[in-house]
């Protein structure tokens, strides 16, 4: 009852004016699931909860978080990117070869990659194409390019990248710091700027945004370019951690990134996404997949299953909360 009366007392223009307890619970769900996984890890192995523990456990979470944010931009526009994993792999190959040997060519290629993403956004809008099929085709294209560039695993990350990925900031482990920065930047850009609202609106109600005079083509291009940019960052950070390239290195990222967005409270349609949630979702998946299982002495065979199970549990919780939301 107290919650309800406080809601009524709120002025109508508050951004969360309609907040009630199920809705709040729903918003907190990603953080709660991460906390739960962390608690489980702490319970199983206390030493893991330390500066070095987090640095090790969350190392691979950085590229996953960046790929998840890339996917989030696409999902904001009601599309789905089935090629992000292959794209991250291709960026990785460029990073481990051209970016080290011929930096100018490498930088131009990576910029070109962002350009290709922007062009895909334009193509999808112009011909009104199903993004699933276009990105499915692009999945082959990126994979093909990666194999051509680096037929066998190898190459080496540029030294500056290796150095920047092994920074040891005081007090806060690097991956945690990186996750905070990624979440803050995307949150501000997408949720707190006026153009961010337009971008989300293009997924929520494209007709309304179009009638209001905004270019839907431009919105789609910006969303895809952002996805390309974060995809490039994901590939760079991945190679900075693994030190060498492999054409298949990013293959699992497509599904992980979709799962991360959904886990973080994003919806498939309607431009309802949450940048902070997406980053938290990616961290949860990264922790649940490998460290948690290791501490539980389960074989790595069950890594992917752990991701699936977490996804199902969180979605079940969300369904329960939403049901209460509707009833109220």
């Amino acid at each position, binding site marked *: 009852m107290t919650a309800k009366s406080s809601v009524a007392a709120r002025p109508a223009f508050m951004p969360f004016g309609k907040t009630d307890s199920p809705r709040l619970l729903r918003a907190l769900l990603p953080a709660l699931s991460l906390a739960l996984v962390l608690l489980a890890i702490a319970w199983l192995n206390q030493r893991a909860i330390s500066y070095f523990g987090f640095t090790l456990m969350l190392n691979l979470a950085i590229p996953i978080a960046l790929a998840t944010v890339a996917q989030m931009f696409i999902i904001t526009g009601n599309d789905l990117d089935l090629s992000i994993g292959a794209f991250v792999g291709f960026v990785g190959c460029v990073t481990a070869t051209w970016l080290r040997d011929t930096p100018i060519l490498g930088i131009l290629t990576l910029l070109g990659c962002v350009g290709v993403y922007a062009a895909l956004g334009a193509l999808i809008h112009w011909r009104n194409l199903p993004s699933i099929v276009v990105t*499915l085709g*692009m999945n082959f294209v990126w994979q*093909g390019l990666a194999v*051509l560039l680096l037929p066998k695993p190898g190459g080496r990350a540029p030294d500056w990248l290796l150095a920047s990925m092994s920074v040891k900031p005081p007090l806060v482990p690097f991956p945690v710091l990186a996750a905070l920065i990624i979440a803050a930047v995307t949150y501000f850009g997408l949720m707190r700027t006026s153009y961010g609202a337009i971008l989300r609106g293009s997924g929520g109600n494209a007709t309304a945004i179009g009638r209001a005079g905004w270019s839907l083509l431009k919105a789609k291009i910006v969303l895809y370019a952002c996805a390309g940019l974060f995809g490039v960052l994901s590939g760079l950070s991945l190679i900075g951690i693994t030190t060498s390239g492999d054409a298949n290195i990013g293959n699992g990222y497509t*599904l992980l990134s979709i799962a991360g967005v959904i886990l973080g409270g994003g919806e*498939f349609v309607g431009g309802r996404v949450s940048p902070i949630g997406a980053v938290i979702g990616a961290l949860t998946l990264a922790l649940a997949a490998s460290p948690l299982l290791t501490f539980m002495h389960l074989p790595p065979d069950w890594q992917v299953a752990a991701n699936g199970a977490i996804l199902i549990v969180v979605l079940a919780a969300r369904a329960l909360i939403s049901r209460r939301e509707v009833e109220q």
Partner: protein
Amino acid sequence: MMAARRWLFASPWMWSYLGAALVWIAAIIFTRGYGAGGMLIAALSLAVFTVVVGIGQMFVITLGPGNVDLSLPANIGLSSAVAMTVMAGDDRLVAIGLAAALGCGLAIGIVNYLLIRALSIPPIIATLSASFIIQSIDISYGRGLQIKPPPGFADFTNIQILGIPLLAILTAVFTVAAGIALQRTVYGRSVLAIGQNIRAARLAGIRVGWVRFATYALSGMLGGLDGALLAGYFRGANVDIGNEYLLASVAVVVIGGTSVAGGKANVAGLWGAALFLVLLLTMLNTFGVSAGVRLLVTGFVIVAVISAAGGEKKRD
């Protein structure tokens, strides 16, 4: 001539047959006519596996936006392992093994639908989470499993009648049956109706839940069957056997003229699209290009085909 052209443009799926013919001709020009027939036979044999899962995927996609079965590769992998274990290399157990594969696929389809229904989540995510778990079960169950198919079953998947692979004939018959089921049965019409407007379909008295359940179950069973057949054809089950069929199943559905927005399906186009994709690979192989170029060209072709066909007209 004009009528023919109009008909061609009115039925975009014909392009897939045309494309298949073109890449085949390109390949035989390159080999100076050598192996033209063999190429077609091989293409028919391989297209079968894509068509079987393509039919399941087509029914699912026709249900409307967001409906897609991402669990097919994991399903194929697990079912192939289950089928080979049950058959245990014994010809007398082939029927039981096939039934086990169908049962395994059916169970996966049921789980998919339960996730969609109970958690009210988009099918993409439901089938994705299911596929994560199935994949792990398969890895864990199929580890070190090196079971060959019974010789009789392996031969069966390679039999040719008058030079045409028996599996292709059976699949063609099944495709016709699927086409009739889609256009002439209550079930098929219900799938189309749900894809066009789920609310109108519900108000018209269609048991939406039951039809969706049946569709996911059907897709699961076809995935299971495909797993068993693949294991027979390639003489052994393995975890990765179904990997390429996620992309392939969606690609043949779309290239074959089925609408991704749902409510409009084309069964005949599946064969054209599957033959086109297989022959495209055959052509690139005869040209002797590297794996990278093969992937690159396949990708460009898919993007080009969908761009040329264009998307749905926006519905307001």
